[in-house]
C-alpha cells in the first residue's frame, strides 16, 4: 500500500506567484522538509486558505484542498480528527489567518490538534492587490492599527505547544523549523504554528526591511523557549527595540486534541467500513433499548 501506483493523477501546477515572491522559498523548504521527514504524498493532506499563499497546495503532489477564506483551520482539524493517521498541514496568508480566520486560530491554539499551520505573512493582502492586513504597520494603505504579533498571541494560550517564526530569506533555518514542526505533529504533540515572513514584492516589498530587522532567537543562548513568560517578555523587548524575533519561540507540552477525543479502542472514523452495518450493531440495539418504554 505504500508504493504509489503508476496511475497518472494531477500534475502539480507551476506556481503562479510573481517572480521574487517569498512564497517560492516557503514551498521549496516545505517540499524538502517533507522529503527529509519521509512523508509520502498519499499520506499528506495540504489544506490552504485563499490568497496568493493559498495556491501552494496546487504545486506539490498531495491531497490538496483549497478552503474557504479564513476557514482552513477548521477544515484541517476536521480532517485530522477524522483520520489522525494522516499528515495534515494547513497553509495560508496573514489576511486569511489573522483577519477573517482569527477566531479559528484562537481556538486552534486552545484545542491543540496535531496539525501544522504555515502562515505566510507578507503583511498585506496580496491576491486582492495590496490592502492592509492585520500585520500591516500603521500608515500602510491608510491602516490605523498596530500590527498584531502571532507569537505573543500564541503564547497567551496555556495549551499552545509549538510556536515559531521563520523568514523566507533564511531558508536553512526555515527548514529546521519546519522539520521540527512536522516532527511535533507527527508524534501527536499538538499544534505546530509556524509563521513565515514571506515578502510580497509586488504590493509591499518588505524584503530588505525584514532582512535588517529579524533577530534570530535560535542563536541567542540566553533565550529559553520552554519558558512561556520569558518568551513573552523577550518578544516584547525585541519588538520594542525594532526587531522582529524569528526562530523557535516556544516549546510546550499539552495533550493533543485528537488524543483526547478520538476513541482509541475503535477504528478511526475515516477508516471504518461504510456499509458494514453489523460492526456497530450492538450499539444501535443499545440505543433502541435505551428508548424503549
Amino acid at each position, binding site marked *: 500500500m505504500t508504493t504509489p501506483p503508476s496511475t497518472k493523477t494531477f500534475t502539480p501546477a507551476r506556481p503562479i506567484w510573481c517572480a521574487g515572491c517569498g512564497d517560492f522559498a516557503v514551498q521549496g523548504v516545505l517540499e524538502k522538509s517533507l522529503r527529509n521527514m519521509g512523508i509520502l504524498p498519499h499520506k499528506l493532506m495540504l489544506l490552504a486558505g485563499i490568497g496568493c499563499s493559498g495556491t501552494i497546495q496546487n504545486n506539490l503532489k498531495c491531497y490538496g484542498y483549497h478552503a474557504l477564506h479564513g476557514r482552513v483551520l477548521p477544515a484541517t482539524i476536521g480532517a485530522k480528527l477524522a483520520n489522525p493517521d494522516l499528515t495534515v498541514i494547513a497553509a495560508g496568508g496573514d489576511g486569511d489567518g489573522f483577519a477573517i480566520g482569527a477566531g479559528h486560530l484562537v481556538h486552534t491554539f486552545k484545542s491543540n490538534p496535531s496539525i501544522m499551520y504555515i502562515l505566510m505573512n507578507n503583511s498585506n493582502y496580496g491576491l486582492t492587490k495590496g490592502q492592509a492586513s492585520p500585520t500591516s504597520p500603521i500608515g500602510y494603505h491608510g491602516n490605523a492599527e498596530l500590527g498584531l504579533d502571532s507569537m505573543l498571541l500564541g503564547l497567551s494560550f496555556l495549551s499552545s505547544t509549538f510556536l515559531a517564526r521563520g523568514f523566507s530569506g533564511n531558508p536553512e533555518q526555515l527548514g529546521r523549523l519546519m522539520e521540527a514542526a512536522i516532527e511535533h505533529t507527527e508524534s501527536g504533540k499538538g499544534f505546530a504554528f509556524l509563521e513565515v515572513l514571506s515578502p510580497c514584492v509586488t504590493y509591499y516589498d518588505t524584503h530588505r526591511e525584514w532582512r535588517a530587522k529579524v533577530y534570530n532567537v535560535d542563536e541567542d543562548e540566553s533565550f529559553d523557549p520552554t519558558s512561556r513568560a520569558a518568551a513573552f517578555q523577550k518578544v516584547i523587548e525585541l519588538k520594542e527595540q525594532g526587531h522582529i524575533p524569528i526562530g523557535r519561540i516556544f516549546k510546550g507540552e499539552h495533550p493533543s486534541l485528537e488524543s483526547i477525543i478520538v476513541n482509541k479502542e475503535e477504528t478511526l472514523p475515516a477508516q471504518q467500513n*461504510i456499509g458494514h452495518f453489523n460492526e456497530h450493531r450492538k450499539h444501535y440495539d443499545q440505543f433502541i433499548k435505551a428508548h424503549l418504554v
Partner: protein
Amino acid sequence: MTSTNTNSQPVLEDISVIVAGQGGDGSLTVITMLADLFRNAGLNVYTERDVASRIRGGHAAATMRAFIGEKHCIGSHIDLLVALDEEAVEKKVHQISSNSIVVFDDSSGPLRSGLLPEGTKLYAAPFNRIAMRTMRRELYKNSIAFGIVGRLLGLEDEAMRQTFTKRFERRGQIILDYNIEALELGLHLADEMGIKRGEGKYRIEQTEPEEQILVMGNESIAFGFMAAGGRFFTGYPITPSTEVLETLQKWLPRCGGVARQTEDELAGINMAIGAALTGVRTMTATSGPGISLMQEGVGHAGSGEVPLVIVDCQRSGPSTGMPTKPEQSDLNIMVFGGHGDFPRIVLTPGHPDDCFYLAVDATNLADKYQCPVFIAMDQALSQNIASVKPFNLDEVKVVPGKRLTAEEVAELDTYKRYSFSEDGISAFAAPGTPGGMSLVTGNEHDEFGLVSTDPKNRVKMMDKRFHKIEEAKKELPKGRHFGEPDAPIGFIGIGMMYGVILDARIELEKRGYNTQYLQPRTLWPMLDETLEFIDRCERVYVIDLNAQGQIAHLLMHQGADSSKIISIRRYDGLPYRPGYLVNQIVEREEELNNNDKKEAKAQ
C-alpha cells in the same frame, strides 16, 4: 374523545393533558411521568413542550396526548388542564371546553371567576402552599398535584408509585423519598376531594403494551445518521437543534465516531467539510441563525462536491426570532441560499420515526451524490416526543458512495477527482489512498481539481454538478400519500403538519369533505409527483408555517398552476392543532361555496 362503557367511566382512548405554569415549575416532569404511565398501560403517547427562551420563569407548558392506535400530534381539545397559576389558565383557556377538567393550584387565591367555560369541572387545591408547609420546597407541588391528576385519569396508585421510583431513583434516595411522600400527600388530598381509587373520570383498559420507543425527532435524526454509518459530527449549540449534538456526543464515540462542539457554526460546517474530505460520513445540525452563517460552507460543499448532511431545526424567524417556537420559514434559504448555482437536496420528514429513516437516506444520498443534503425539521418535529415502533434496523440500507481503493486507482490510466461521467458522479479516493492524490477547491476547476476558468470546462462542470440531481430525482424519497387520488381537495404540508393534517382529514371527512394529502418527503429538487398531485386535485391547500407562503410559491416557482393553490399561512409561533386547521378549511370551503352560489346566481 372517549367511548363510554357499561361502567359509568368512559374508557380512555384519546385524551390530551396540559400542565402549565412558569418555566422551572417542572411541567415537563409531570407530563413525562404521565406518558410513562400511559405507555405502561398500553397506550401510545405524543408530548409537546412550550417554553420561553430563558432559563427560569416565563410561561411554560407541557402537553401530552395518550391514545390507542395512531396519532401524530396533540389533539385539538384539552381534556385535562393542570394549571399551576392563573396565567396558565389564561394562556390555555382557548383550548378547553365545558367537557374539560381543570386542576388548579389556588395557593395565591381562587381562580378568577368567569375565566373557565361554563360547565368545566374545576379541582382546586393549594399545592404550592401544601408543599411549602409540609416539605419546605415549592418544587414538590407537582408531585402532590400528580396524585390528583393520576386519580382523575384512572391511573393505579401503585403504578404511580412505581413510575415515581423509576424517575427519581437516580437522583438519590432523599429526593426519591420526598417525592413519594409528596405523591402520597396528593393521593390523600384526592381522597379528601372525593376522587377515590378507581373513581376517576376515565377507566384505563390495560392492554399488553406494544413494543415502542419514545423519541424526539432530533434523537431520531442523530440515530439515523449513526446507523447509516455517520461517524463525524460538528456543530454548535442552538435551540431547537442541540439534542442532535448532545445525542451524538453521547453515542458516536462508542462507535468510534467524533462528535464535537465547535467554537461557532462556521467552524462547525467547515470542520465537517474537512472531515468529509477524508471519506467519513459527516453531518452538522443547527437552526436558522446557524443556517444563515453556514451559507458559504453549503455552497462550498456544492461546488467542491463534498458529501454533507445539514440538519436545520427551524424555529420562528427572522433573525433571533422566537427560539423556542416552531416555524417552517427557512425553506427559502435551504432551497435558494448560498451564492451562485449549485445542487442540493432538501428532505422533509414528518414524524420522529420518519426522521430516522430519512436521516439514513440523507446520509446515503450525500455520499452518493457528493452534495449538501438538508434535513428540514421544525421545532415541534425536533423536540416533541412520540412513541413509535422501534426502528427496523434490519431494513437500514447503508450504501457506500463511489469510492476508489488503492487497487482500483492502480487499474486506472488516469485518476481525476472530478472526472466527467455518465451520471455526473466522480468516484474518488480518500486521502491516504496511494495514487489518489487530487485537488478539491471551491473555485471552478478542471477534472483534476485544478483552478480553471476555461469557458467550455466551466459549462461542463456546472452541468455535471446539476446532472447529478437529475439522476438523484429517480430515487429521492417519495412522499406519502393519503386519501383517494380523485378527492377534489388536496393538502400539501410538511414536518409537524404531517400529524395535524392527518387528524384534520378525519374530522373533515366527518364533515363531508373529501380530501387527499401529500406529504412531500423531498422538497428540493421538486419531484414530479408533487406537481402531479396538484394537477390531480381541484384545489390544494398548501399549509405554510411561515408568513410568505414559501412552499406555495416554491410550487409556483417550479411551474405549479397557481390558480389551484390556496395558501394557508401561520406564523404566530403557536403549534397547530387539527381543529384549528379544520376550521380554517371549512371557512374557506364555505366561502368558495358561497362565491360559487353567488356566481351561479349572477349568471
